[in-house]
């Protein structure tokens, strides 16, 4: 399946681009992260501390074990600092 994958804040900076289309068979967010980390060092580095990473699937915050079946957009970002 094709997923739009988005990165924000320092994840975007470390990975080097704000979004990309990923062709993947990953069944969960965790599996997708494993695939991305295997690609290149900059991905591996960006995801090296998952305590500092949050994820949203189709614009809803969720956990790393969330299934990706039917998903169109996955976003990775650090803990939010609004307000």
């Amino acid at each position: 399946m094709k997923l739009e994958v988005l990165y924000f804040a320092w994840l975007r900076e470390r990975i080097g681009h704000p979004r990309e289309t990923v062709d993947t068979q990953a069944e969960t967010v965790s599996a997708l992260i494993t695939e991305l980390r295997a690609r290149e060092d900059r991905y591996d580095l960006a995801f090296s501390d998952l305590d500092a990473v949050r994820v949203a699937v189709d614009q809803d915050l969720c956990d790393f074990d969330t299934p990706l079946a039917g998903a169109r957009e996955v976003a990775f970002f650090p803990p939010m600092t609004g307000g």
Partner: protein
Amino acid sequence: MQIRVQQAPFDFGDECNRFAANRDDTGAVVTFCGIVRAPEHGVLHRMEIEHYPGMTERALAKIAQTATTRWGLQDCLVIHRYGPLAPGERIMMVATASCHRSDAFAAADFLMDYLKSRAPFWKKETTDEGDGWVAAKDADEAALQRW
């Protein structure tokens, strides 16, 4: 209920007046305004707020809807800016209207706690010591437990 995510400045006073207008059956209006302030260390030159278009509006609407239902608000307003901001500039505001002050206060406090840690905004500071993303505070995450 109104949610606005915008790069442009907003006029805090005008928004307060508009929000409090024509409210014969509202006893209490509470507003909060967040202002770009100096960091713990160094001199702040600039702040940049990044956000996640689409999800931001969704997340804010959900938080505002929860507050409205839980405290029986007559109305609530959230405005949040993104992009570059200078020290002293107004980043965001919330406003709540209710019959009773305790509901208006609690709802505004709740909105701020959730908006701070559950709406997709990220702050980057440029100081005389360099650039850096503002780290989330444990206290902000802990504050959510109050609700």
